[in-house]
């Protein structure tokens, strides 16, 4: 059965019927869900997020042709593994931004440019996205980031330096900042 299913996924991709491929991968923080369209990585699910709900959401918002297939995500997995080993500071994967729009997308694109090991404030992100007063909306953009880790919203902190929030939970945000040398320990 497994060989049949692999063959099916390969054929679906070859015939342009694999709109969303997903797989899971291990990380020091738990299991991640990765999903890609033919354009690029479209969704990263953090360990505390419900994988089934994420897939249902992808089926509704991108396409119901959602299949488990690891090959289209080999590169994403490779880069994430290197990142967690501290050997990769910049992701080079193609990204599919279709799950974010307008102001939120502008915030996320600005976040994607924050260099490894550095942090910015929510106010700075709001300003980069073209509206310095929309700090709360910038926070929401981080909170609804469909591509955490790769679009490093963990590098965005409160103006006073407090951690703020994180979709994957604060311990994970702290862990990532430690990994990047922003926090000690």
């Amino acid at each position: 059965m497994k060989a049949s299913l692999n063959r099916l996924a390969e054929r679906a991709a070859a015939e342009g019927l694999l709109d969303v491929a997903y797989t899971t991968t291990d990380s020091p923080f738990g299991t991640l869900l990765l999903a890609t369209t033919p354009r690029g990585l479209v969704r990263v699910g953090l360990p505390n997020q419900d994988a089934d709900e994420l897939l249902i959401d992808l089926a509704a918002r991108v396409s119901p042709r959602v299949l488990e297939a690891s090959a289209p995500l080999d590169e994403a997995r490779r880069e994430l593994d290197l990142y967690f080993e501290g050997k990769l500071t910049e992701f080079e994967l193609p990204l599919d931004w279709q799950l974010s729009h307008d102001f939120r997308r502008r915030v996320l694109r600005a976040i994607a440019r924050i260099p490894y090991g550095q942090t910015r404030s929510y106010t700075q992100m709001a300003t980069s996205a073209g509206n310095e007063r929309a700090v709360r909306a910038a926070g929401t953009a981080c909170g609804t980031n469909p591509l955490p880790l790769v679009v490093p919203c963990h590098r965005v902190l409160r103006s006073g330096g407090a951690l703020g929030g994180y979709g994957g939970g604060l311990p994970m945000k702290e862990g990532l900042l430690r990994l990047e040398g922003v926090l000690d320990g």
Partner: protein
Amino acid sequence: MHSSWPISRLARPQRLIHEVTELPPFQTLIDEHAEQVMAVCRGAVGRSDADDCFQETFIAALRAYPKLSDGGNLRGWLITIAHRKAIDHHRARGRRPVPVAEVREVAVEDPPPDDGIWKLVGALPPKQRAAVTLRYASDLPHTEIAAALGCSPEAARRSLHEGLKRLRKELS
């Protein structure tokens, strides 16, 4: 009475909520029904060609899936497709000449029976074969067999009955 008050807008019913079951991620169909589809294919075309029938079924399903208007009976939908693919397979096979390196001069023997009872099922007339497969490989009730075959539940019951009668006779 304010003549400017947009009465018609107030009277308009709220946006209709479509009672269409939202389509689940296609992987769910595979997780839940792949075994059954494979069993139907095995029953309908035999073990050696079952995987081709299985692939054709799921590729056709995947192609049609986003436009499916109702996600209510996905299992019945998949099994119906599997049956159509099995029929296509039999038709293609009937027409297709078999290429051989050289014409054999010895009598061709039947391959040894490897599918047991399913081999006998495979030899039934199409309707009976389909009804028996749907009932026992797919565990479908008469109403769903009827839907899959595009006949009345009574006709489905009859096909099943005839098929089983014939199998009993062959086995006794």
